[in-house]
């Protein structure tokens, strides 16, 4: 059917404007979405590759530990792969700027800051579950305790978190994600080089190095997260001024 005819047909059913609409809709007590509904809805927006990569890493570690003859040396393999998990999670946070949607998302019912924080929480929780799962798998196969394993696995992960957040907070363009990918590759290579150049890196001799690195990187990552939240708050304020 012709478009103009459809349009004419639509106008053939024109009616006098309702008079009590606004009053009724303002008083209407309809069920509003709860926080839980909102969090559930955000789960659906996280891309499948985040879940798939986390699952592959977990299964890969399981198989690697099963077939590897020296499980201790497998620690550095996993710790070199872990930054990629954080990269995939981080890529979820820069989707708005990658697709130039920030301004639009700022004006939505739930603004970008809320959405980002919820997604950050979900992704952080997922990564934590995967990490704990991997650590438990390692604990059964190696002599390392939970804390030592946590230090070995989480330090490169935190270094990548800090590096990518540092980039995100200073560069806001469509190319940010490529720079973040470069940072992740660099962290992974650095971790591998550290292991190959220093054979005793996973011994108690380097314990202090791991502890200090972990604390410093955790603090720096937290600082960058706070900075990101503040920056989004400023962006929201700017958007409200131009609305």
């Amino acid at each position: 059917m012709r478009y103009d005819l459809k349009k004419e047909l639509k106008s053939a059913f024109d009616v006098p404007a309702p008079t009590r609409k606004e009053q009724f809709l303002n008083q209407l007590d309809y069920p509003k979405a709860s926080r839980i509904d909102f969090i559930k809805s955000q789960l659906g927006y996280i891309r499948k590759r985040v879940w798939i990569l986390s699952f592959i890493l977990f299964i890969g570690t399981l198989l690697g530990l099963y077939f590897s003859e020296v499980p201790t040396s497998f620690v550095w393999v996993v710790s070199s792969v872990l930054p990629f998990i954080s990269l995939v999670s981080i890529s979820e946070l820069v989707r708005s700027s990658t697709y130039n949607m920030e301004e639009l998302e700022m004006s939505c019912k739930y603004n970008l800051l809320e959405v980002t924080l919820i997604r950050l929480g979900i992704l952080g929780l997922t990564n934590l579950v995967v990490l704990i799962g991997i650590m438990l798998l390692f604990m059964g196969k190696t002599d390392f305790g939970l804390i030592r394993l946590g230090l070995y696995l989480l330090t490169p992960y935190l270094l990548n978190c800090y590096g990518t957040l540092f980039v995100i907070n200073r560069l806001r363009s469509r190319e940010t994600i490529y720079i973040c990918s470069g940072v992740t590759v660099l962290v992974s290579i650095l971790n591998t080089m550290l292991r190959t150049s220093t054979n005793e890196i996973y011994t108690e001799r380097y314990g202090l190095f791991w502890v200090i690195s972990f604390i410093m990187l955790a603090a720096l990552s937290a600082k960058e997260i706070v900075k990101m939240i503040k920056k989004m708050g400023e962006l929201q304020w700017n958007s409200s001024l131009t609305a």
Partner: protein
Amino acid sequence: MSINLQDLYDKIYKYCYFKVRNKETAEDLTQETFLKYFNQKSYIDRGKPLAYLSTIAKNLCIDFYRKNNRNEYLNVEISVNDDVSKFESNFAIKQAVAELPIELQELLLLRFANGLSINEIANIMKFSRFSVYRK
């Protein structure tokens, strides 16, 4: 729940007005439709609110005619259109639509004014999909 209530209200009001041809009654029926819709929880999260609201509105209109024992329209109100030239250009279409059987008019309203799918119209009007296509 992120539905455009304003838009839904307009569409249901248009449908009720088509059924009863009285502004006040159409608005009463529209509001009753919304109250009934939000009074139950079984359907709200299933999507397609317009189709469900249209079904409620249709049933309420039938009840309204039953209660008042009427088979004819109430005092027909003629919509006032400010734009005279637009009114003239639409006149032929309006006249053609007015000459159609009431069932077909309802189908056109649901399809072209309210944008419902063939399936949804078939469910509301209790026709088969094939009948809707044929009409």
